[in-house]
């Protein structure tokens, strides 16, 4: 059977005109329902309007099989919102017209602007929006610090279980992807370094170059950017849905602090996870670098790793890890901040999740740039 068959268990609506002694009689028959009318609506409406122009015609609707509100409305509008002077109607169809008889065309208030336009208006006032975001973000940070102080005073309330779940989800599960990306990054970096340094006959400096870049700069920020995309979005969406489904309210009325139970474990979890993941990325990218240096310019593995400790003072590792911890906290707070702004509709869920990722990555890059400026004299050889 065809689609038409599946839908058609109706008789098509029909209009017939007959000349009688008294004038023109119009006979309507078939089903005058939404689904039956749809295929021929324009054509029927044009005919009805033309026929209705002459009020002398007699309308006979008694052969109509089924009539619904749409069918009645089409006729009613064709008649100019009043019954023609001569109309024959089945009693069972009379109430359907009664629905329309008492009504005037609707007047809607100025329709509310859809959320996308509201978002545009927000963009037009970026300064104010930025100010609000900064204020709420700092308030969240303050609340986090208060919560930490509170939990240090009552160590038994520390949500260990949630923190370890977050570490597992955002850290352990991210090992494969961060590992692969780190390895590939090390390979590319060492290859570029090897080609250019070889031109100056300085090819033994490949390890120093890869080491500095990965340990102090790219290791932490690359990991942070992956995590902002991977876990930042997850946190925002999860908190958002918790708000939509009133889980946060339910928690509140049970006397459980949602900031301690939901926000704090995520912030602490990411602050712990990011330095650890950074170490993992550093290790793999250095291995990738050593492998490439060996294959590309025949640099010895032992030489690659043995020159690292002298070329790369240990303080660089500490700087890298401290930055990573900072990135973790910033990403988590940003994700929570946007999660709490989600309104109860799916559009807002999508918009805030996007913003959360973009803002998280931007923040990582800004913090990294600031750190580079502030720490410019620390950790280099001979300083």
């Amino acid at each position: 059977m065809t689609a038409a068959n599946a839908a058609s268990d109706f008789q098509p609506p029909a209009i017939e005109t007959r000349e009688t002694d008294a004038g023109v009689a119009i006979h309507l028959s078939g089903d005058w329902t939404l689904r039956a009318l749809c295929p021929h609506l324009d054509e029927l409406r044009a005919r009805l309007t033309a026929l209705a122009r002459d009020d002398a015609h007699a309308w006979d609707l008694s052969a109509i099989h089924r009539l619904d509100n749409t069918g009645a409305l089409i006729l009613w509008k064709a008649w100019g919102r009043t019954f023609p002077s001569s109309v024959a109607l089945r009693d069972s169809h009379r109430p359907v017209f009664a629905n329309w008889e008492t009504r005037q065309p609707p007047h809607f208030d100025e329709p509310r602007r859809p959320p996308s336009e509201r978002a545009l208006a927000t963009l037009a006032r970026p300064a104010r929006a930025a100010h609000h975001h900064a204020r709420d973000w700092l308030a969240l940070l303050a609340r986090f610090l208060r919560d930490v102080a509170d939990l240090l005073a009552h160590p038994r309330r520390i949500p260990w279980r949630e923190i370890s779940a977050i570490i597992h989800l955002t850290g352990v599960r991210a090992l494969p992807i961060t590992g692969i990306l780190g390895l590939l990054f090390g390979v590319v970096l060492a290859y570029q370094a090897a080609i250019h340094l070889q031109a100056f006959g300085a090819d033994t400096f490949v390890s120093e170059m890869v080491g500095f870049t990965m340990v102090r700069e790219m290791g932490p920020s690359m990991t942070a950017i992956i995590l902002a995309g991977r876990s930042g979005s997850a946190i925002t969406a999860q908190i958002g849905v918790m708000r939509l489904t009133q889980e946060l309210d339910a928690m509140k009325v049970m006397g459980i602090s949602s900031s301690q139970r939901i926000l704090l474990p995520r912030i602490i979890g990411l602050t712990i996870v990011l330095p650890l993941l950074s170490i993992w990325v550093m290790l793999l990218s250095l291995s990738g670098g050593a492998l490439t240096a060996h294959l590309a310019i025949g640099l010895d593995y032992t030489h690659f790793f043995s020159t690292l400790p002298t070329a790369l003072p240990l303080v660089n590792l500490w700087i890298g890890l401290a930055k990573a911890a900072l990135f973790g906290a910033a990403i988590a707070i940003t994700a929570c901040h946007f999660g709490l702004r989600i309104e109860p509709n799916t559009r807002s869920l999508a918009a805030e999740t996007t913003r959360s990722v973009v803002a998280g990555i931007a923040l990582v890059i800004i913090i990294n740039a600031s750190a580079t400026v502030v720490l410019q004299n620390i950790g280099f050889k001979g300083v």
Partner: protein
Amino acid sequence: MNRNTTAVELAGIWTDFGDRAVHRGIDLRVPGGQKLALVGGSGSGKTTLLRIMLGLLAPQQGTARLFGRELETLSDDDQQAIRNRCGVLFQGGALFTDLNIYDNIALPLRELDALDEDTIAELVCMKLLMVRLDERVGSLMPFELSGGMVKRAALARALALEPELLFLDEPTSGLDPLAAENFVDVINRLHRDLRFTMVMVTHDVHSLHDLCDQVAVLADGELVAHGPIDQVIESEHSFVHHFFRGGRSRPISGAGAP
């Protein structure tokens, strides 16, 4: 709808969730024009059975037919055409949260691609009026409505396409008694005008009494009783007994109270 057609037919439906069987072999036939009430305890699988009827969920065993057609075996277009003839009021409303109430109701009408905006506006207002919602509610977003208003807006949307088969999942829960009575009036009037078939899940004995001509009782994964309401009330099954003759189904009357 023709009275000797079959709107819904279930045969040997068996549903498991994990190791828990929710339905163990359910047979049910709803002829065209009938108003069937599906009752049963909370968690007995009524909503799940509606989802099976609509083809939203495939049972482990058994077949479900809508208008004599097994949905799974049809092409997407045919499935769509069949579903177009149904209106569904979901238990939680399932209004589109991004659209205001007006657009929620107008969406299926616009989808038909045959009506002009003026006609759609009049139809939407008519639907709002039918469920006793003010026209101004049209410009509100779903989260700005109370629980009972959500129910009524969702009913208006279910009625938007003038369905031949109406599925209602607990339509009167969350309504005050007056609104529930209005709801019964609305449905009765619509049924008189349009002669649709109706399958309604309900816990409300009063509206069931006024609205439905057949009752099916779901308990322990089976239909323990099925028939006209007077006949079902006589059943000796303990759930049926408690449901229809327990203390909570008696109307409250000041004089009779001890």
